[in-house]
């Protein structure tokens, strides 16, 4: 499974998205389930899946999927297709 596929599966699971709802340019404001508890869950899920411990500040600052990818890529986790 590629990192892109792992991230997609993780966010579908946390945000309870339908498969067809997911996009890699999805923004937090577009999804009602991306709430304050989801921010915590995304932080925990990122650590479990990619091994990177996101700080609370980083998790709160995420505005969408592109920000998650940028944050992880800056830590050396590749999302190349």
């Amino acid at each position, binding site marked *: 499974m590629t990192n892109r596929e792992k991230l997609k599966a993780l966010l579908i*699971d*946390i945000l*309870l998205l*339908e498969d067809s709802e997911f996009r890699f340019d999805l923004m937090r404001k577009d999804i009602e*389930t991306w*709430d304050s*508890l*989801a921010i*915590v*869950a*995304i932080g*925990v*899920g990122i650590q*479990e899946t990619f091994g990177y411990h996101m700080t609370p500040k980083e998790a709160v600052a995420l505005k969408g999927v592109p920000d998650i990818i940028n944050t992880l890529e800056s830590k050396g986790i590749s999302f190349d297709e």
Partner: protein
Amino acid sequence: MYILYESEVNEDISRLDKAWPEPPTFIFMPDRSAVSREWVEKGMARFPDSFQENHFVLLTSGSTGMPKLVIGSRKRAEDLASVIHNVQDSEPVIQTVLALPLSYCYAFVNQWLWSRVEKRALISVGGFNRPDNLKEALLAAQDCMICLIGAQVPLFVSHYGDDTSFPGVIRVHFAGGPFPQQSIHIVKRFFPNAKIFNNYGCAEAMPRLTIRPLEDSDEGSNIGKPLPGIELRTGEAGEILFRSPYRAVGFYDHDGLRIPSDEDWVPSGDLGEEIDNHYWRIRGRSNEVFKRYGEKISLPQLMNTVCARWSGQAAFYRDKDPSGEEGHVLILTPEPTKEQVQNILQAFRKNHPRTHWPLRLESTPAFPLLPSGKIDKAGLAKIKNATVHWRQRL
């Protein structure tokens, strides 16, 4: 005063018939219970002289893990049996078949005592401990009444399949837990000629407070109207309080002996509210409504969401998330498919904010049951082989 064990009565039900008119008060105990004989005897020793005769005592509340001896007046209980006879439209009934343990207050008053007071036949064949005998008795039944709890509906399906019905049963009563509104089509299939009632009460009421004929509402949480002579109101926290001329006259638990006066309002242990035309709606056990991140969580309401998408058995048990906040776990049986899990989760997403979502969605091959047939909620949290299908990552 003495202890009468259920196994003694099951062997020879005339023991109960003999005990009832004799003066000494008796404690009718299940054979297996969460309390020792010493604890019961300690409680008996504290009973005042006025309770030493013409009373009976039942043990209740195994499902919450807080055992309580409930002391009933025989005269009050007989009066209630007569009231029940009228409100349950039981005049045409000539017999009743037991499907619940007799030490269960609901079966004791609504079946054994009712049959004694109204001079109807009581048929005891071991309930679902002997499902073939129960089936035979129900097939042979004529103008029969049966008392059930909602959790027994799946037992009818698993034991008797799709092609059995019991046309001789003309009254079916539910009490002792959530009314099985979602599976009422199954109840009607098994009992095509029965009037169905949702009865509400508690052991402290000994046991009946309200009644609703099925057709009065399509809402499972609608418990109907109070019985004649019974008053209901809600306390500050929304808990149902009652006054009843039939209720238990004393209670003994780990806090000691309590003897309320007739003026006292007694909590039923549930939350509820009055709705239209004196009908009442139950909102769950007091311990089934709690706050999570400041939001009020009602497990019975969440169960409605689950039952709309899941036809198997489902239950919640309480747990805490890693931050120490109170939460709840949804557990199903039998094993759901991936699609069914997604279906239930999507129902949570659609109908409830995340704080109301379960911490985990689990399944197990079978639920642990209490001797009464109710789900052993304390036992759910101790299941070791539960499969986790989904979890909130918190």
